[in-house]
């Protein structure tokens, strides 16, 4: 029942976002144009950098902390959309306990998404359109595999972006979130294969090192390249 309430709320929010899309888009255009102008001046040569596409999509401008926060907001949107869908109709093979914990994770990711939306306020990018066509939501194997991929990637994304954050409070906030994502990752990995909670050898493609006991860490361009298959909205990255 709570889940239905959430779904309705989500739909309402999406609707209101669409209604407000004109204002949001013009803000993005304004921000994008000025950033492109700066990049052009700075480069001193227009061959070095193309103009970002202003016609569609979301622009992540990494020139300051808002870019990093919007990047996190984009990833949290993706995760929340995935878990909302799973929690609304979990695979039949899920146990009662697994259904309950996927509900928990759903609300964690929704809370992260809404937190960034509120914290970024007018600087927030719009809602992303997701593409989950590669996931079979009736199959526990498919859902768990996708959940693991999202969580491990999310951890690597926060770990890799932390060094870009200039404001103490934002850095701590990213830290507060990433450890929760790591707890999710470990839980989901243990469902797939008990004991794989921190199988760092399996995470080397995300920058992990088992010899040094280090988790993944990836730069935003690499993260977005991997996440891209789940996102329809064009994401423009500038000043990375």
């Amino acid at each position, binding site marked *: 029942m*709570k*889940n239905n309430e*959430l779904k309705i*709320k989500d739909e*309402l*929010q999406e609707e209101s976002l669409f209604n407000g899309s004109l204002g949001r888009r013009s803000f993005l255009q304004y921000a994008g144009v000025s950033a492109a102008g*700066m*990049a052009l*001046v*700075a*480069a001193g040569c227009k061959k070095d950098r193309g103009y970002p596409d202003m016609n569609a999509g979301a622009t992540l401008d990494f020139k300051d902390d808002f870019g990093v926060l919007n990047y996190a907001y984009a990833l949290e949107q993706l995760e929340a959309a995935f878990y909302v869908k799973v929690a609304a109709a979990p695979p039949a093979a899920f146990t009662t306990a697994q259904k309950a*914990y996927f*509900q*928990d994770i759903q*609300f*964690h*990711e*929704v*809370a992260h998404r*809404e*937190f960034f939306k509120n*914290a970024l306020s007018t600087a927030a990018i719009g809602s992303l359109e997701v593409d989950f066509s590669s996931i079979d939501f009736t199959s526990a194997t498919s859902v768990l595999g996708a959940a693991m991929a999202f969580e491990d990637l999310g*951890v690597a994304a*926060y*770990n890799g972006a*932390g*060094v870009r*954050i*200039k404001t103490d*409070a934002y*850095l*701590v*906030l990213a*830290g*507060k*979130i*990433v*450890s*929760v994502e*790591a*707890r*999710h*990752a*470990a*839980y989901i990995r*243990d469902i797939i294969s*008990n*004991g794989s*909670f*921190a199988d*760092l050898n399996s995470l080397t493609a995300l*920058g992990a090192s*088992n010899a*040094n*006991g*280090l*988790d*993944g*860490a990836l730069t935003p361009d690499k993260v977005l390249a991997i996440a891209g298959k789940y996102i329809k909205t064009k994401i423009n990255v500038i000043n*990375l």
Partner: protein
Amino acid sequence: MNIVNILEEIEKVDGEIYERLSPRRSAMKDFYSMGKKIALAAAPLALGSMFNKAYGQTLPTAVVATLNFALSLEYLEYHYYNHALVAAPTLTIPTGAPLAAITTIRDHELAHVNLLKGALGTSARSEITYAMTDFTAGGTFGDVYSNYLTFLKVALGFEDTGVRAYKGQATVLKGNAVLTTALQIHSVEARHASHIRQMLAANGASIKPWVSLGAGGISNDTGVPQVDAVYAGENLDVQAGVTITGINGNTGVTKAAAVECFDEPLDTASVVTIANLFLRTGFKL
């Protein structure tokens, strides 16, 4: 951006900046010649590279202190698990998945010790040996090496403290490449904590893989009052002035969910107090 202003700012805290830079004129030359080719956005990176050349591998004092603090905690964690695996005949960790998990965690803690020692080089603190520790915490956990459940409860205390401790040091490392490494350790500790919580749950404890709201709204969700200090302030549901409970009409985000979805940092003094419970007199932090 004016490089002269930057150098003057640095001179205020390091009077020898010009001496440091002048024998390394090639570093400055590299920087200026690069300026024509790169975008302004990349300038801080080039500048950082120049200062690395000028300062060599010297880490700022505050960073050294933080890394040594982390090293102390990693020594404690390593000895805690290692002793359980190699020298605690009265402790039975079930073979199979539980023994494999504790071994994995021990190996990670040892890797962290070695990594931090390597990064610190000659600035590394002296070694903490098992003999310097007291994992009964003066008798509070008297059966820690003979009762598997007690062993798991104290292990969870270490892991959740570790997660909070690294988070608490993040701002000291801000903008430094070392921060990325610290974050990579931090999330591994969170994975450990999640798994040990699942091990406790498998043995009958009512506990989630994430830090939830304790009974009656208290911050400690483990049901082990002896570790209250580990969870002090974990029941926060306001982040950066934003109330998370019920955020934007999402009633599914209960107070418990709001507490679960953000882990809280712990300041140095609080972590030291916890760590010192497990160190013998004469070896406390």
